[in-house]
């Protein structure tokens, strides 16, 4: 066991970690930040995506001890300062981009990272970027719409219905 300290959602946080403790375990069990989810054990599903030093990372692929000193943002840190939903979060609600909500934190974190890299992605670019995030509920239709809407684009032309 070792004490690991990171800046999480803007605050300095410390919790213990074994050598084998994954970042996602450290967040969920060490800090009780349970918004980040675990949906698989092969780094395929993307439910655990967080931002580490500004980059989208599957938190099941990183060891907590190796990230001592890192800056981490989780879904709990994505709302506006006044507590209202951030742009991506609000678009997911507006366009019904979530159902059961389990993949949602990872989806939102991936979508936010995409929009940082590519502020006006096409439908195909959104779909390609989100390949590493599995959703079983929505068929991705409304997620794609939400991400494009969050980028400020008019989604009427991409909505087939």
């Amino acid at each position, binding site marked *: 066991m070792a004490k690991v300290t990171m800046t999480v959602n803007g605050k300095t946080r410390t919790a213990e970690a074994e050598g084998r403790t994954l970042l996602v375990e450290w967040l969920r069990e060490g800090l009780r930040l*349970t*918004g980040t989810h675990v949906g698989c054990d*092969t780094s395929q599903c993307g439910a655990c995506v967080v931002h580490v030093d500004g980059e989208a990372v599957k938190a099941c692929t990183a060891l907590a001890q190796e990230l001592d000193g890192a800056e981490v943002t989780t*879904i709990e840190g994505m709302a506006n300062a006044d507590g209202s939903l951030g742009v991506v979060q609000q678009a997911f609600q507006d366009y*019904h981009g979530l159902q*059961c909500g389990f*993949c949602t934190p990872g989806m939102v974190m991936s979508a936010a990272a995409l929009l940082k890299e590519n502020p006006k992605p096409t439908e195909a670019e959104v*779909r390609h970027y989100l390949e590493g995030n*599995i959703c079983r509920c929505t*068929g991705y239709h409304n997620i794609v719409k939400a991400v494009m809407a969050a980028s400020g684009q008019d989604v009427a032309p991409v909505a087939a219905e």
Partner: protein
Amino acid sequence: MPKDTGIGASPKRREDVRFLTGKGRYTDDINVAGQAHVAFLRSDVAHGTINGIDTSAAEAMEGVVRVFTAKDFEGVGGIPCGWQITDRQGNPMQEPKHPVLAEGKVRHVGDPIAAVVAESAAIARDACEAIEVDISDLPAVIDMKKALADGAPKVHDDLTSNLCYDWGFVEENREAVDKAIAEAAHVTTLELVNNRLVANPMEPRVAVGDYAAHDDSSTLYTTSQNPHVIRLLMGAFVLGIPEHKLRVVAPDVGGGFGTKIFHYAEEAFCTFAAKACERPVKWTASRSEAFMSDAHGRDHVTKIELALDADNNFTAIRTETHANMGAYLSTFAPSVPTWLHGTLMAGNYKTPLIYVNVKAVFTNTVPVDAYRGAGRPEATFQLERVIDKAARELGVDPVDLRRQNFVTEFPYATPVAVEYDTGDYGATMDRLLEMIDRDGFEARRKESESRGKLRGLGLNCYIEACGIAPSSLVGQLGARAGLYESATVRVNATGGLVVMTGSHSHGQGHETSFAQVVADMIGIDENQVEIVHGDTANTPMGMGTYGSRSLAVGGSAMVRATEKIIAKAKKIAAHIMEAAEGDIELKDGQFTVAGTDKSMAWGDVTLAAYVPHNYPLEEIEPGLEETAFYDPNNFTYPAGAYACEVEVDPETGRVEVLSFAAADDFGNVVNPMIVEGQVHGGLAQGIGQALFENCAYDEEGQLLSASYMDYSMPRSSDLPMFQVDHSCQTPCTHNPLGVKGCGEAGAIGSPPAIVNGVIDALASAGHDVGHIDMPLTPAKVWAAMQG
């Protein structure tokens, strides 16, 4: 004009805020003070005799609390099955015991042999590896037909064979069906596989058991679609805990799709172990564990024959299906290939004679049970594929062949025991054709050909039986439960309402849509209505959510309870306003007296109910709280027409879905946004089945597709934007909301469209391919093109 509030509006979902900010409370987010963690040692062979289990090394490890094996469960019941099928001879199905931990034998890869309770999940997993199990391998049966062969190894030594049941439906029709097929002008025959799937809700299953010594009560937090059903099954049949000493909580649940209906051994284990260890115990499945312990879906092998007369009217259908039960009978497994499949074999068509034979088979595989659609996708797939094949053989238009055989008059009693109350299959087909520009297809096909691709148009119809189910009917059919639903509406003194429902929301948005219904009935703001679900401690006994039943059955119970509330509130208002009860009207949250200017606000009446100073105490009790149980008198029958265009790369066999259109008739719609989302998700799962997903075993029973590395889930880049439409509405005639249910339609209706489309694409290049089994992987499609 779209409505802003109430029934028919699409308000933003209230549950989204917690899910979008990380404040959801899923079972794995629950930690009970002092909890220990569980890991299961699972069989790595498909079939074997357990000669001995040495747990001593595991027990000696630091941090291990206790190790359990089957001997700790002597006197504890097996996991029960909720449905008994009667076979063609009138005998009950063969029903083996399903122990919590394997007794004497292991019967599938993943069968739990032992469980470790330890201070951490990691220690529990490590300790599992220290358990020594002496197993003698036995030959496994994986293929259903081989499992039924003489001399095949038996999954359960105490049964006469691996045949669970041989079911005929309707048995009395068999000879007439045989005769009609023998005399038909044309018979189209198709043999096909409905591939085994894994439901894969993104949240793996979790169970947390807690025992309170001070009042001898147990609590189970679990990832369930129906906490009351788990309480009843586990309490009464497995652990012997009376329901008043057992609380089951299913908080936010991350998707279900059927596989979280069933009562699982891990739930019973955690509840049992919490008491035995005198501390809370928690188990969280890994995804790999989910693949080998969540009930699987589908896995039918079918031969279907469709007989037509010289005018192309359907005259008879005969099917023979082998249905895989896996190693044990999961909660509703026997009902899926029978009553949820055989009763839908008429489809949208007026075929006068139908005979369905189903042989349910035990194999050394994970139990198989209901998965989104459950029986109805299997019925739809074979029927809509054989009709398409018949159209090709006869050289007629597949739309015309369907139209000519549509049921057009309602109610319609099918030859397979159900009565469709209402529908308009021509209307959904018309709507579909408007959506897809069929006339422009040939030009699009040429454009694809110019790029070296083969384009196909596939379409089909579907019907399903939802709103499950009339208790008296399912009781006659072997159900060991009633399938009503319940709601309690509690009005608080200041006018807000709490609706406690037996339905369970795990993605369907009930907290929003149910509030729309109740608020609309009273005429108050939706934010004054709170929906409570998922906890047996504060909801009336309900049967939960599956079979697209929540609004049709649970919503109906809620409507009935709210009607009682309104009736009582009107009595109170009549007394206070000194008017006749019959003159009281409720609109927009105001009680008025007809023909006068007297009125009272909703909140003033509710306050009077709890502060009964001026109140008709001699006539009615104070308070404003009502419960209703609603038992439907028929199923509901959503139906529709679906179409897709696909492009096949002849070089590789890869299939791309270019477009998918769904025209559904769900009856009345409460929240169009949510309904469309349900269809989108169903389509993705149906397209997944058709093109990507397959749960594969090797001949020895090793599960080859036990992770997302091997089981191909549909990804965002695999799917197109969908066109969905629910403007054709024939309201259900027998429930108060006129709703039919929408949760499963997409998964039921989409696989045949995809396969029909690929067959059409290949035909355009001269490949006369009768059928390709799902999933239509590039390898299979390419092989089919090579003849």
